[in-house]
């Protein structure tokens, strides 16, 4: 009787161990694929914006849909840096024969507002556009790891940065 009980326990542990390893490996691969997809889609999206000189509603929505296909939720932080040259005047309005340079930064809230209102957000040649994407939820791999081996996973394990100079302008 004891031997039968021992056999069942041993068999259960053996099967559980084998399945755990397979599950850990599979979900880890899924996370890696999700990271690759996020990298690839972000690169394609940013390059498309940099080449065209604008971001349309369709471009943005297609990008978001591609990210969602990985099964995770993401924070998308977009930054548009526009270099401006502003003349320097004294307090009494006399031009001081000098100018200052400054970056005017526009972030995703304002970019999205313009996209939703006008259908398009335009950039100037030489501006900078960059995107940071990070996962908001604990990924499937993270959940399985915390369940099976007790390693706590945080959100944001899938993260990517990508950006550069705007190459063309939309006319």
């Amino acid at each position, binding site marked *: 009787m004891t*031997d039968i009980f*021992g*056999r069942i*326990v*041993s*068999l259960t*542990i*053996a099967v559980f*161990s*084998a399945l755990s*390893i397979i599950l*850990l*490996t599979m979900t880890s691969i899924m996370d*890696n694929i999700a990271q690759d997809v996020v990298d690839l889609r972000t*690169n394609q999206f940013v390059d498309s914006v940099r080449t065209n000189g604008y971001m349309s509603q369709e471009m943005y929505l297609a990008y978001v849909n591609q990210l969602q296909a990985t099964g995770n939720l993401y924070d998308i932080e977009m*930054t548009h840096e*526009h*270099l*401006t*040259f*502003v*003349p320097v*005047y004294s307090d009494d309005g006399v*031009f001081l*024969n*000098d*100018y200052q*340079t400054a970056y*005017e930064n526009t972030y995703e809230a304002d970019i999205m507002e313009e996209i939703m209102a006008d259908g398009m957000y335009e950039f*100037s*040649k*030489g501006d*900078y556009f*960059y995107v*940071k994407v990070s996962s908001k939820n604990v990924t499937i791999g993270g959940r399985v790891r915390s369940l099976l081996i007790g390693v706590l996973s945080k959100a944001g394990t899938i*993260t990517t*940065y*990508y*950006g*550069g*100079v705007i*190459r063309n*302008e939309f*006319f």
Partner: protein
Amino acid sequence: MSFSRFAVVVIILTLSLSIPTRVHLRETEMVMDVKQRYKIAMEMAVDDAMDGIVETDNGSDVYLNKDYLLEQFYHTLFINLGCPNDSDIQNRVKTFIPVVLLVDKDGYYISFSTVVEGNDGLSVIGKNWTDKLPYTYVEENSGRIFNFTLGDEISVYDPYTNMVHEGRYQDLARLSMFSVDDRSRGMYRSELLCGGRFDEIRRNTIINSITESMTYYINVHNSIAQQFGISYKFSLPYVEEDDWARTIDDISMFALFQGMPYASTDVRLGYLNLYTIGGARIYKKSYYYIVPEGSVPYYHKTGCEKLDSAGASSMAHPYESAADCAAQGAYPCSDCHP
């Protein structure tokens, strides 16, 4: 052996094989990811730096804005490494870039490391450009000094006549002072111009000059990096033959990223060591116009709707850059955001 013991043996065997394999796999993946991420970041940075580097090009006169090049290079690099606003990480990244090379048509510049004082009074790594370093070759028999370019144009200093000759090497080779060997009259046949090995010697001279200078400034960086706690020994990596060919073909840039451990906690995994090469694209400027609105002048870029109603006098005077307009006291238009 009973079944339960057999099962235990199987479990131990499976775990002892799978866990080290998994750890090794994760390390390999991590190294590959870091390599790929930095490779993309460097390629983007070099690409952006070289976009618009050639400020004026009317066929012969080219002006390279080197400060603009470095600014663009580092800005794009920091963006793609996720630290566009973190100056501490930015300074750390700069310690892994010993040199940046800019190859011009008649010489080259190297951005090398120096120590400067940061905003908070602490020492940080700074970058300076060398003056233009020529591609110089000294002919043994005559002592003539040749300065090469990336093309056929050369300049030759002749110590006997104390004169400088400039032109295409094929044209200079026809002159008797280079083609005739008459030592009694101080004429030496130029083996370089007339020996049929001009391209080979020119190419080797350019590559050797660049290699020697880069090695020197990498050594300078070694001593500076040590002050910032980097014990890695920086050195010029082996550059593929094809990559040299691309570098000395036209105006181009070469950037080296070296010495960063793949994992800061485990240097056993090795160090990142990569270089990136990019060619220049000629930048066609768009023009800017200043239009007064009341007493305040505003500047607009080509295509702005406000230019439709601008007077002929405004349109007759285009400016080449937004900076030129601001220097005239004009504000940027709020519509076209020049």
